């Protein structure tokens, strides 16, 4: 196995990791801070992709159309996030997390059908936006420039979330709430509103990553079921609620899958769950996570 083939496989792992990070970072927020096992995050991602497609098709602005569509879709998903959190999850914080889990499970069922009703069943596709159509040659191998766009977007999101979580007052509150919810509430901080904003932020990220996934692959029913379990793997491996953890987690899952495909294709998926189980057994709170108080 010559170096450049390995390098190329490594880069394809990076591409997958960057998309996974986009989706998983939203989940890490809701899962990490709100401790909600949010199965609906995958559905918000799928809905985001379909909404982006419709806005993109509606606007049909030549070059910049796709970026505007993705941005607007993220806002739309934020709105939907408010509705879900405010009307459904907020009433359940007092009750056990199993009920919250079941609500997100019910949302998966509802959103799947909404997409079926709204967009029918066709698999849609958004062509790759102008500057990122072709490929860039890297060590002699073509590397799709759109993957660079996804990686750049991932980095931008990392910086934004890092700034938000570690450099702002809201960030301090979020980290405190992740660690000890009652204490933060005791300090008089309106926890319900904080949780709404975190869930909305998570939903917007899901919408954004859905939009970005459009040109990357196909927009089709079943996207949600397929990505959500991998996202759980990423968040669990990295550590719940820890940003660097999610970054590392998506890198690990991306590479395990890429090299799994190359060497033992039929076990590639199994490797991911083996790593997830191993991390949970050895260090339940993940590589960068903190043990629960």
């Amino acid at each position, binding site marked *: 196995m010559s170096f450049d083939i390995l390098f190329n496989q490594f880069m394809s792992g990076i591409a*997958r990791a960057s998309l996974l990070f986009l989706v998983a970072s939203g989940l890490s927020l809701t899962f990490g801070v709100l401790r909600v096992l949010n199965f609906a995050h995958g559905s918000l991602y799928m809905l985001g992709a379909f909404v982006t497609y419709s806005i993109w098709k509606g606007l049909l602005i030549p070059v910049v159309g796709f970026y505007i569509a993705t941005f607007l879709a993220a806002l739309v998903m934020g709105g939907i996030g408010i509705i879900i959190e405010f009307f459904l999850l907020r009433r359940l914080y007092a009750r056990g997390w199993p009920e919250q889990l079941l609500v997100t499970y019910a949302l998966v069922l509802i959103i799947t059908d909404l997409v079926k009703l709204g967009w029918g069943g066709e698999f849609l596709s958004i062509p790759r936006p102008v500057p990122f159509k072709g*490929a860039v040659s890297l060590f002699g191998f073509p590397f799709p*420039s759109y993957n660079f766009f996804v990686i750049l977007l991932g980095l931008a999101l990392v910086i934004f979330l890092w700034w938000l979580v570690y450099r702002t007052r809201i960030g301090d509150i979020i980290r405190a709430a992740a660690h000890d919810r009652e204490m933060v509430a005791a300090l008089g901080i309106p926890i319900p509103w904080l949780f709404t904003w975190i869930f909305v932020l998570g939903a917007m990220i899901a919408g954004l990553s859905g939009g970005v996934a459009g040109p990357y692959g196909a927009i*089709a*029913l*079943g996207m949600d079921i397929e990505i959500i379990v991998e996202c759980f793997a990423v968040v669990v491996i990295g550590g719940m609620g820890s940003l660097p953890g999610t970054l590392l987690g998506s890198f690990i899952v991306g590479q395990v899958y890429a090299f799994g495909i190359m060497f033992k294709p039929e076990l590639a*998926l199994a490797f991911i769950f083996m790593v997830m189980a191993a991390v949970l057994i050895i260090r339940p709170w993940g590589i960068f996570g903190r043990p629960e108080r």
Partner: protein
Amino acid sequence: MKRIAVLITIVFVLSLLVVPMVMAQAKPTPAKEPAKAPAQAKPVAKPAAPKEPIKLGAIYCFAGPCYMYSESAINGIRIAADEINAKGGIMGRKLDVIVRDTEMKVDVGAREVKDLILREKVNFLEGPCSSGVGLAMQVVHSEYKVIRVTTMANTEGQVVDKFTPYIVQIVPNTYMEAKAATRYLHKKVPTAKKFATINPDYEFGRREFAAFKEEITKLVPDAEILYEAWPKPGEKDFTAFITAIMAKKPDAVHSSLFGGDLVAFTKQAAPYEFFKTPFIALYDLPVLLALGPDAPEGTFGFGRGCFFMDPNPKMLEFVDKYKKVRGAYPDSWAVQAYDGVYLLKAAVEKAKTSETEAVIKAMEGISIDSLRGRFTIRPLDHMGSVPCYQGTIAKDPAYPFKIWKDISRVPGDQVWRSEESVREVWKKTGVVR
């Protein structure tokens, strides 16, 4: 606590008894069409003879990648049924279509077939979409002795390995389709020796791969398969597979990817200049529609007969009808489902009854003029000599999407498994015929 538990139980027992009884008697209103299908013209109320209607159970998979194909198939069936009823039905008996969804799940499929047979008392079945569900369903409807025409699930397992007399296949099976596609690929790239393959990892993909391997070694004795990629169906990220294939630098690549998977694969492969290597896959109408400008020209496609693959007069007439009803071009799923209804009509009229055993006898050897030209049902394994199509993707000014050029139409009987080899397989799988 005790009194309320009693209350709950009474309600529970009552629901156990009463609700199903009410269900059983009350005729459920005819299944609502999927939301998108527009209202049909009201069939002319002909004083049908007092015979009760012939009931066709259309059982497809409205989940995941199959959702869209199933919708097209239902449209094809409805158009055929309305035409037949407009001309007085089959032997004067009205044709009722009942739609059911398997959710692409084996147990739901098996149960819905039982529902159609036991509750709706259907005479015939058509569907499903997924091969796995088709195989599981076959065990059930064969036990209840009801004929199923399969127009989409095309695994060869239905008519060969797990053959039962209650199956009729009018979609080219995986063996025929892959063999025809391999010949086309070989004709286009005769010098190719080193091959790579990428097939969805389930019944359908594995059968197409096996047939490709058998045919290519016959056509190119020293052919070599360097890499077999097996993405899971519904895979959305093929990057790792693409780079792994290109690392082997094959002369040509064969694939049975279809639908959303093929769309995602194509878009992710294009930047890697993957399509410089000769490549053949199921580039049928829905995929070409979705890809639009991204469809790779010069790449080869194979399919089962949508309008542009076989533009004969009967097909063009069907295109107008379909455009009027659905506002879109008919894909191969609508075409084959439409043919399925007419095949049943022909067999019932030949048998002069809708009774299963008689219709099976009538079906064996029957031939009809379908949208895809004339084909016959082989008595041995009820496989239709239906054509397989291949072509090369190219622009066409007449359509807003790309279609095929230098189309080859391979009649079924040139590529289907010979009767001896069918019997050989039956010895192994224990089918007695």
